[in-house]
């Protein structure tokens, strides 16, 4: 199985690796997946007062396609408002990275990670309820 050049590029030069302070009220953290399934993604977003994403970081345990999907996700969410970022679909990631069918779950996980991170920061901002569909977050 050969990897697409874009997957290789993200694997070789992953964008936005690292961590943001998860206790910062402007930072949302999403952790999705499970080690026994072979992939865990942690994606973090930092927003400004206008709820625009000014920074994003990720760490991923997973195959090259999982690393590339999360790397791409951090690139794409930067500069978007939270609601705009929710518009990113896994199918967009599949298309951009030319993921084969067996790797579609990597893109689903990346979408889940974006949603989980956004839900977390929204919750912090409003102190309110978590919107549905974003419960995919691990808790230590």
């Amino acid at each position: 199985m050969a990897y697409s050049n874009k997957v290789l590029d993200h694997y070789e030069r992953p964008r936005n690796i690292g961590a943001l302070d998860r206790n910062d009220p402007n930072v949302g953290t999403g952790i999705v997946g499970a080690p026994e399934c072979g992939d865990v993604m942690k994606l973090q977003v930092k927003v400004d007062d206008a709820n625009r994403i000014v920074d994003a970081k990720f760490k991923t345990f997973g195959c090259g396609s999982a690393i590339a999907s999360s790397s791409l996700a951090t690139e794409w969410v930067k500069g978007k408002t939270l609601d705009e970022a929710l518009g990113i679909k896994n199918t967009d990631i599949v298309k951009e990275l030319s993921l084969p069918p067996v790797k579609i779950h990597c893109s689903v996980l990346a979408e889940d990670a974006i949603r989980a991170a956004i839900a977390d920061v929204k919750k912090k901002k409003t102190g309110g309820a978590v919107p549905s569909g974003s419960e995919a977050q691990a808790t230590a």
Partner: protein
Amino acid sequence: MKPSIYLDNNATTPVDPRVLEAMLPYYREKFGNAASRNHRYGWEAEDAVENAREQAAAVINASSKEIIWTSGATESNNIAIKGTAHMYADKGRHIITQVTEHKAVIDPCKYLEQQGYEVTFLKVDKKGRIDLDELRRVMRDDTILVSTMFANNEIGTIQSIGEVGALCKNRGVIFHTDATQAFGKVPVDVEARGIDLLSASGHKIYGPKGVGLLYVRRKKPRVRCEAVLHGGGHERGMRSGTLNVPGIVGFGAAAELCRLEREQETPRLTKLRDRLWNGIGEKLDEIYRNGDPERALPGTLNVSFAFVEGESLMMGFSNIAVSSGSACTSASLEPSYVLKSLGVGEELAHSSIRFSLGRFNTAAEIEQTIDQVTETVQKLRDMSPLAEMAAEGIDLSTVEWAHH
């Protein structure tokens, strides 16, 4: 780019140039059919086949009359298991095997289950060894066959074959062993170990693909297998079909080289493998060796690198060809059933790499491998959320993960 360091010799081996040289005349001028009895073409082909039979038999202390040529170990396993089951169906319909067998043993056994046979799959301990007491307990009056592999392809663990053979002899049960990984690499003596049926393959011993053998004991007891392929009654009626003469010549030459060189090759490979393990261990923590270091194939090293996933690891050292127990590398998206059966956690199965060293690997290649593997693991651990959580003191086993 094609990897230039090949450490996947348990998957297949390159053909030794000496083997290829031996084969070539049988593609060119000596192209006869070994079953042609009326001319020199046939005679020289038959002579070559019989010579190869002697060469192969010598590796396992068998008689050449006990060697049946096949297309490979998968076919040998099918004949041994299905052929025995059908031949001895009147005596009983119970078969014993183990969970870490290759699919070429497990699948014929599962097929027989559908045919009304009963199969007991022995569990293994964390080193990959079966429990002989358990084997003794599960043997019944209607047990007709025990099939336990000689050495495991993923972790290299060598079973107590002699003890299994003795137990089988004692109970009058036929004993088959899949010796695909062991043949020519470790001492295999069908007499000393009470083996009745044994499978081996050409392409694991620096011979060609598409040729294998099944050893079938002729005396004490005389074992019979019903044919799987019919059409001419070649190979004592157990395997019809025109013989693959160049392939068989290659098998014979490869087997002979293994026999003559094993005494030097085993310590060389063992040293390289130990250097690889120690070299990685000097630079990395949280690594786990899977299998039984005390009783293993000389060239096999299976390691789990905590917090990093196997396929991404292999991407990182793309100059080295290895294999992984990670789900991402399998069609089923399930991690290695062999590693799971050892009780290795699924996350460590996903993090496993099998290095299988062979005849053409050098010490310099192992040093390069150590460097590239440790660099890649470091790089991936730097981007691993699991490594980060572990560093924060979080016990990963207590985390409630969101399964998907």
